[in-house]
């Protein structure tokens, strides 16, 4: 993936995921997305949630905006602790 796209994804994560999960991903209306909060959650499960959402809660599906590879990359960043 090009680094400019990676920057866009990080921007999306902080700003747009951040509207519910907080700019620093410490949680808000949505749960925290820090590495410790996500510890033990399988990568595939997190990818599915991002792609398909959780309709009964407020989590929307992102599959129209992100492809499989991009979601995988984001999940890797989350699991290694992209949050401050």
């Amino acid at each position: 993936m090009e680094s400019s796209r990676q920057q866009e994804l990080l921007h999306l994560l902080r700003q747009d995921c951040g509207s519910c999960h907080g700019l620093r991903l410490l949680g808000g209306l949505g749960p925290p997305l820090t590495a410790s909060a996500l510890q033990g959650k399988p990568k595939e499960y997190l990818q599915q949630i991002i792609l398909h959402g959780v309709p009964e809660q407020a989590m929307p599906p992102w599959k129209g905006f992100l492809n499989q590879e991009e979601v995988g990359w984001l999940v890797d960043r989350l699991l290694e602790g992209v949050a401050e």
Partner: protein
Amino acid sequence: MSVTGKKWRMITWMATLLAMVLLSGCTTLRGTGDLGLVVERASGSVQVLENSHNTLLGSVTGLGDLSHATAVFSRDGRYAFVFGRDGGLSKVDLLTMQVVNRVIQAGNSIGGAISQDGRLLAVANYTPGGVRIFDTETLQMKLDLPALAADGKLSKVVGLEDAPGQSFVFSLFDAGEIWLLDVRDINQPKVQKWTQAGLQPYDGLVTPDGRYYLAGLFGEDGMTVLDLWHPEKGLRRILQGYGRGEAKLPVYKMPHLEGWAVAGNLVFLPAVGHHAVLVADLQNWQEVAHIPVHSQPVFAMVRPDNRQVWVNFAFPDNDTLQVIDIPTLKVIKAFRPGKGIMHMEFTAKGEEVWISLRDEDRVEVYRTDTFERVAALPASAPSGIFFASRAHRMGL
């Protein structure tokens, strides 16, 4: 008189003059009626602005995590109280542009309100779920009210607003309750609670006259109203089924409700998960119109003269604004100022509007009659814009 005496008098006079010049330089008197602030969410700072000449006066830093930050104003208009996401509550002097007091009052919070008499601040917290109340002079905590719902669990608090009778009113997101908190005697607070307020209330507003509290619902198609003049009548569900059976779209940003929603008897509300602004009649709460708009609205804000409603939209359509003409209830203007439109704030009499463009790193000012851009000012990832003229309005 001797020459020395004359000389001495001259020196004294000049020294006095110099002192006056210096003093006036340091303490030029000014009001705060045209001041305000722009939240720079990513850098934990705010810029102080003035809207008579549309300039930014300076920056105030060290305010913590300002995602979703909001501000209220002391009733003398001098201080802004900024509520940060990280539970930070900061008192900012708009004149000296200094943080004069700051506390971390909770782990995660969403906003707050200032009491009718201006002496108390209430903060809505997610962690720990509840409301905390502080003295505006000292920021000392006066009350800690956990949002312990009927189900025995702590709930996130949303939609906290000030209301007449030295009250605060708010909703419990997880539990679907509305609480009315009377703090006329802060040592003996009185709480009235309503359960069954609807599924997942996500925000609330108080009408400008302070009479009605409206909670927006995420979990169902409708809203809930509490008549604060007649709380004994309980809650009323309104606009039920406003989606008209159409599937709700995924919501990429929760709409916001604010006290700018009312024009005469009409109240303008963002539909959740639909491309529509809803209009209800305050006298009977019936739906008057269902105005199709560009995308899912975030804010629907009535211009102070009640003639227009300005609407911004959720991701991915947050580059567009639309203006609804109230007499005809039709969209009369659409334009695309740029990426990441987060917030709009009208000047007190509404001739201009400030707009924050988060992804363009600037704020812009537009005339509301010609839609002409009159200023563009640099700001780092700006989100909320709040004018000190809010100090004298209920429910903001």
